[in-house]
C-alpha cells in the first residue's frame, strides 16, 4: 500500500508514523514524562520539534513535531533526560543512529547498594519527584512480601530488598541520593551547567518556572523574600523553566557539559553546540582531540619499541 504518514495527538501521547508496505516507523512522545523542556527541540538535527511557548501546560503539551521534517533518526529518544520518546521500527524498539554509532548515548550512572538498605526504609521511593523508584521486598526463596509489620526480627533480617529504578526516565537530579538516610545511593549528574535568576527582571507573584520545573527541590519560592530560588544541587538543566519564563533574560540557563558514551559524529557535534554553547563544545573537541593524539602517540611508540 502507498506510504501513509500519520500524526496523532491525544491527551496522553503524540505519535508520528510512517506506514510503508513492508516497514513501520513510529515515534511516540509519552506526555506523562514530557516536561516541556527544550532539549529535544535543540538537539533535533532537522529542527522538526517546535515548542510553542504561548501554550499553557495544563492540558495541552507545548511540543509539536513536524511530520514533514522528522526522519525518525532517534536522537530525541536518546537525548531526552526524562525518556519521554520512544522510536520503534516494525514495533521493536530500535534506534538506527545508535546501531550505526552516529550518535552517543547519555550516561546515567546510578548506583545503589541495596544489600545494605534498612528493611523498612522507603526514603528513596518516596523522595523521587518522578516516582521512578520501586522498592520490592522478597524473602529468601524469591516471593514478594507485602506486609512486614507482623514479621519477627530474624525474618526481617533475611528479607532481600530489590530497588527497581526506571533508568531511562531518570534525569539524574540526585534527590534520592541526598534523601537516602543511609547514604547508599550514588548518582552522577549527566548534564552539568549553570542557572541564574535575574531577581530584578523576575516578576513578583509569577510562579511559571516553579510550576514548570519537574523537580520541586530544584526551583522554589523562598517564603520570606517571595522570590524564586534555585538549588543547583538538584537542577537537571533541562530548561523547562526557561521555556515557561515570560520575561526575556530573567532566567539564564547554560549547559556546560554532557556526559555521553564515546562518539565521533558530525550530528553529535552540532547537537552539542546547540545544547551547550560554541565555547563549551570546542572544549570537548579539544579534549577529545588530545585524547586521540595521546592514543596515536602511545600506539606509535609502543610499536617502535616492539620493532627495537
Amino acid at each position: 500500500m502507498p506510504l501513509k504518514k500519520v500524526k496523532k495527538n491525544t491527551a496522553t501521547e503524540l505519535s508520528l508514523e510512517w506506514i510503508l508496505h513492508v516497514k513501520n516507523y513510529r515515534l511516540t512522545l509519552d506526555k506523562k514524562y514530557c516536561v516541556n523542556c527544550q532539549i529535544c527541540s535543540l538537539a533535533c538535527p532537522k529542527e522538526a520539534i517546535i515548542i510553542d511557548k504561548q501554550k499553557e501546560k495544563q492540558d495541552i503539551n507545548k511540543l509539536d513535531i513536524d511530520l514533514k521534517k522528522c526522519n525518525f533518526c532517534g536522537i530525541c529518544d536518546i537525548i531526552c533526560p526524562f525518556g519521554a520518546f520512544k522510536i520503534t521500527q516494525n514495533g521493536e524498539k530500535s534506534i538506527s543512529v545508535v546501531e550505526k554509532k552516529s550518535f552517543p548515548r547519555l550516561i546515567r550512572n546510578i548506583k545503589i547498594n541495596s544489600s545494605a538498605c534498612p528493611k523498612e526504609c522507603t526514603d528513596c521511593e518516596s523522595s523521587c519527584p518522578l516516582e521512578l523508584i520501586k522498592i520490592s521486598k522478597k524473602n529468601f526463596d524469591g516471593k514478594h512480601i507485602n506486609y512486614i509489620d507482623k514479621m519477627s526480627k530474624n525474618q526481617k533480617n533475611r528479607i532481600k530488598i530489590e530497588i527497581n529504578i526506571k533508568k531511562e526516565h531518570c534525569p539524574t537530579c540526585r534527590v534520592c541520593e541526598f534523601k537516602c538516610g543511609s547514604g547508599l545511593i550514588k548518582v552522577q549528574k549527566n548534564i552539568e551547567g549553570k542557572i541564574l535568576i535575574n531577581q530584578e527582571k523576575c516578576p513578583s507573584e509569577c510562579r511559571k518556572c516553579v510550576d514548570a520545573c519537574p523537580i520541586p527541590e530544584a526551583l522554589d519560592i523562598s517564603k520570606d523574600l517571595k522570590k524564586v530560588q534555585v538549588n543547583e544541587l538538584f537542577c537537571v538543566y533541562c530548561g523547562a523553566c526557561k521555556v515557561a519564563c515570560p520575561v526575556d533574560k530573567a532566567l539564564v540557563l547554560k549547559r556546560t557539559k554532557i556526559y555521553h558514551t564515546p562518539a565521533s559524529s558530525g550530528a553529535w557535534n552540532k547537537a552539542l553546540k546547540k545544547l551547550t554553547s560554541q565555547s563549551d563544545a570546542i572544549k570537548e573537541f579539544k579534549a577529545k582531540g588530545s585524547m586521540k593524539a595521546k592514543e596515536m602517540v602511545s600506539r606509535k611508540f609502543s610499536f617502535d619499541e616492539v620493532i627495537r
Partner: protein
Amino acid sequence: MKNPDIQKQLSEEQLRIGVFICHCGLNIAGTLDIKELVEYSKTIPDVVFVKENRYTCADPGQEEIRKGIKDQRLNRVVVAACSPRMHEATFRRAVSEAGLNPFLYEMANIREFASWCHPNNPKKATEKAKDIIRIAVAKARLLRPLEIIEVPVTNKALIIGGGIAGMNSALDLAEMGFKVYLLEKGESIGGHMAALDKTFPTLDCSICIEGPKMVDVSRHPNIEIIANADLIKIEGYVGNFKAKIRKNPRFVIQEKCTGCGECKDACPIEYPNEWDCELGTRKAISLPFDQAVPLIYTINRDYCIECYKCIEACGAREAINFDQEPEEIVIDVGAIIVSTGFDVYLPYDMPLIGYGKYSNVITSMEFERLILAAGPTYGKVIRSSDGKKPSAIAFIQCVGSRDKHKYPYCSNFCCMYTLKHVVQLKEKYKEDIDIYVFYMDMRSPGKGYEEFYDRAREKGVIFIRGRVSRIDEDPRTKNLIIISEDSALGQPIEVEVEMAVLATASIPKKGSDELARILNITRGSNGFFMESHPKLKPMDAPTDGVFFAGACQGLKDIPYSVSQGSGAASRAATVISKSKWKIEPIITVIDEKRCKNVTSKCGICVDRCPYGAIRVEESQPARVIEASCHGCGTCVAECPHDAITQMHFTDEQIMAQIRAALANNPENKILAFLCNWCSYAGADLAGTSRFEYPTSVRALRVMCSGRVDRDFILEAFRLGAGMVIVAACHLPYDCHYINGNWKMKTRMDALASMLKKLGISPERFRVEYVSAAEGAHYANLIKEVDNQMLALGKDKIQAENQKIHPVLERILERKKQK
C-alpha cells in the same frame, strides 16, 4: 532590402497574376462550385490566368503551376486550396522551380476555411471562397521578392529525458557522429523501464535488457550524460539553441565515487524510496537502484543528519563533499529532442476505490515493485496488512482511464501489463492463487500481444467483463470485496479477494507545463505535447528544431518508444547534419529615414521585442539583428512612427487584405485576425474536424497577434465592418514569440476602451484566445459572435459606423500623411 532596383522594376512592371483553384478531390469540389470560382477569378483585376486542378499538390498539379508561370509569364501566383500550414512550402518550391521568387506566391485557404466548415451551406461557402481568393490576390499584388537567409548550425543535440526513448535517440545520434547531451532530471537514466520487473510479451527481465543499453550510453564517446540536473532556460532558434542547465549537487564528487556502497552501509537514516513507489526505504546516501548510470551516490539533505559516518566509511577515497554547490552551465546545440516520459496517476481522489484507505489496494506499478526480485519484498507478493501472500487477487482495469470525469483517453499499455502480471503470478504460484481481471476491453494490438492474451486465459485466469463500481473492505481480515457488473451475466456481482491491483491511468509528467514554457511548445488537450501534425509529423514540434520521442508526446509501449526514439534522432539529424540552416526571410526592417531615434531618443522597439533582436544607439536609427529576429512583427505594430516594416506582412499588404475582405456588405462580416501558430491552426482544426460555423467570418493570417496594428482595427471599422476579432495564443505562456500576445493585449485593451467611448458596442471588438487544439472553441466563438452581430442588427451597426467614420478618417489620414 537587398535590391532596391529590382523592387522599383517590379512595381513598374505590369502585374500578371495566376490563380490555380484546387478541387482537392471532393474535399473542396464537393461543396464549392468550382466553375463559379473560376469565372469569378477571371474578373479580378490583374488576374491573367485561371486554372482548376483536381489535386494541385500532386505532381501533375505542380507541373501545371510551373507550366503556367513559364507560358503565361506570370509574376504572381495564388493557389486556392488547403491551409498554408499544410502546403505553403510545397507550392513555394514549385514556384521557385519555375524560376519565380518563392515569396511571390500567396495561398487562399478555401478548404479548411470554406468547404470543410460550411458543408451544409454551399452557396454561402462559395461566396466566402470568392472573398478569400480576392483577399489573396489583393495581397499578392503587393508581394515583393525575398531571399532566404542562411545561418550556421551547431552540430550537436540536446536530449531532455533519459528514458528508453531518449537513450535510443542518444545512441543513434552518437553513432551518426554527432555530439549529444543527455539531460536527466533524476539521479540515474533509465526511466520507468528500469523500475519494471519483466516486459511483455517476451517476459524478458526489464533491467537485464535495459542495463547494457544504459552502459552503452555511458561509454559512448559522443554522449555526455548530465544527470541530476534541471533545464533552466532555452534561447535561440533552430540550429542555434543555447541551453542553460543547472546541475544539482549530489554532495558526492562524481570523479571520485567508485560506487562501492560502504557509505550506504554506514548511514543510519532511511527514508521512503520514491523509486520503489514508497513501498520501501533507501538510505540518506544511496543509489536509486543498483544498476544506476551514472553509478554515483547521492545524499538527500532533507533527511541527512550530517553525522558524517559516510565520510568516515569512504575514507581515503574522499568522495563526499558536503559543500557542493549547484553548478550552472550553458551548452550550444542545434536541435532538441524532448523525451520526458509520463507519470502514474495515484487515485487518492477516487474514494470508492479505497486507494490510500484500504491497506491491500495497490497500483500496478507498486505490484511491479513487489514482484521484482530486487524490490522491497525480494519478489514476494505479500499483503501490507499481514505480510502474507494473498490467495485471491483482483486486477482492475481502466482506473481513471477512459473516464469522462478523470482522463478520457485510453492509457495504451495497461491491458498488456496486467496480462503480464497475471501470467507471472500464475507461473510463480500456480494453483495457489485465484486471479480475477475486471476489464472493459482487452486491448492487445501489437505483435505477439493477442497470443499473450491467449496464454493468460489458458493459465486459468478469470476475466470478468464489467466496470468495478466500488471496493469495500472487511475490517477484520482486511480483505476486499469488489463490486462490479458482470456483463456476461447481465448482473452485478461481488467477489471477495485478498488484494486488489489497480491499473491506473498514465498521465503527462509533472513539470510538462514548465518545460512547455521553456521550449515554447504547446500541450494538447490531454496534456501531452502537441506534435506538428498527428498523422504526418508525429515527432516534430510546431517549433522548428524541437522533436519528440516517447510517451511525452502520447502514451506508447516500449517497442513504439524505441522506434520513435530512433525516428526523432533521424529528424534531429536533418537539422544538425547541415552546415547551414535556411531561415525564412519574414523578418523586420527599419526605415532609417523614418526612425525617430535619430532626432529624439525613442527605443520603444528595443523594449518591445521579445527576443531583444533590435539594438539602438544614441542618435542612430535602430538596427534589427537579422539572425535573432523571429518575425513576430510586434515591433512593427508598436512603433508609433511607422518606421518598421515586416517582410511579407507589410502594413500595405494587410490593409489591402482588409479592404478586399470588407468590399461587399461589410456590416454582415466578422473580420478576424488569426495568429499563425495557435488561432489560425485552431481555425484549421475546426475545418478539419468539420465543425460547422456561420459563413460571415473572413480570417486574415499574421504570424503573431502582436503584429496586429491598432490601425488595422480602425481601418476595418472605417470600412464599415460588423464585428472584429483578434485571436491569439493563450496567456500567459503559449505565445510562440514569447509574449507577443501580451503586447497585443495591452494595445487592444486601450483601443477597446477608446472604441467604446466613441460609441462602438463593446461586443463588436473582441480579443480572444484560441489554441491550436481548440477547433471546437473557435467554431463556438464564431457562432457566438455571429449571433451577437445578428442581435445588434445591420441598422444599428451601420449607425454606429457612420457616427465614428469622421473620427477614423481623421486618424488614418494623419497616418497616411506621415
